[in-house]
């Protein structure tokens, strides 16, 4: 199958593979240690593990955009910060 029209690059392929692994990882996590039922966090929202992943991903996207918009530092700084924020989200939200 010719996918050249999709204009793949290894960077974007890696991005989607990581997202795929995250989704797969969530499944494995839930199978190994069930506990994905909703619970209330500091925002007062009932969130499941899947919700927290979604919040983490969308927050990461905005962190990267803000980084590109306001800073000139290398982008991996935003990625590291996003991982840190995601850990906080999974722990507290």
């Amino acid at each position, binding site marked *: 199958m010719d996918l050249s*029209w*999709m204009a793949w*690059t290894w*960077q974007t392929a890696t991005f989607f593979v990581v997202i795929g692994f995250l989704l797969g990882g969530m499944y494995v996590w839930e199978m190994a240690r069930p506990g994905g039922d909703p619970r209330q966090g500091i925002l007062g929202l009932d969130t499941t593990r899947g919700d927290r992943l979604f919040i983490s991903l969308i927050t990461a*996207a905005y962190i990267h955009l803000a980084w590109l918009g306001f800073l000139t530092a290398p982008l991996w700084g935003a990625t590291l910060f996003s991982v840190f924020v995601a850990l906080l989200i999974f722990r507290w939200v």
Partner: protein
Amino acid sequence: MQKTWNNKAWFLVLPVLLIVALNAVVPLMTVVNYSVQETFGDNLFFFEGTRWFREVLHSDRFHASLGRQFLFTFTILMIEIPLGVIVALSMPKSGVWASVCLVLMALPLLIPWNVVGAMWNIFALPDIGLLGYSLNALGIDYNFTRQPVSAWLTVVMMDVWHWTSLVVLLAYAGLQSIDGAYYQAARIDGASRWSVFRYIQLPKLKHVLIIAFLLRFMDSFMIYTEPFVLTGGGPGNTTTFLSIDLVKAALGEFNLGIAAAMSLIYFLMTLLVCWLFYTLSMKGETQ
């Protein structure tokens, strides 16, 4: 009693997943791929990293069209939601006139976007259009092809004409589903018309209004055809909303990288607003 837990039913969702993958995920992936590359056609691409995102985020043109987009969406929501509720409240509850009103309300929704744009274009023309000619005959200087304020008013009026009906139909359906016992209780308590609306009708309408708000937000946020046919984004760029700007960048200027970066930022904004709105409305529901 222990419930049987069987996940096999999820396989029934597979066909839907496949369709969604083909019509949404694959194009989205392609847009992500385009957003980090430059192309001059012929399927040749050159990696540019985050350059297009930086350019879009620092672009005055993008800020201006985003501002216009938010202003337009805010304006039509502020008009269409209350107006839709008022019209729904004043429609007959039953009988032949209820059916007549419903059909009349549904009519604008059946007209294709480009036809609505063309209709309003002719309707508002200052020399031959009924609206444009009448306003000028009354001494009001109105020309939507030259004056930004007139162009804005026309685009807003057109959207209100086309889409308020959707809010009306949703609100009417919501009102019809309210149990008569509530009104009876209100009458016994001697409640005023306003109290009935504030404490019975409005809370019961909450869900349909959330749906109406979401639908109108999404639809107006990606409005393209109607203003494109009516004003073409002009005069100047005064009615160039995000989607018109996006198409100009992608097809007019063939800046696929910049257009892809704009699309992704656009997509993230819509995603965030929908998620926030859905979550907050569900939060109210669970409490």
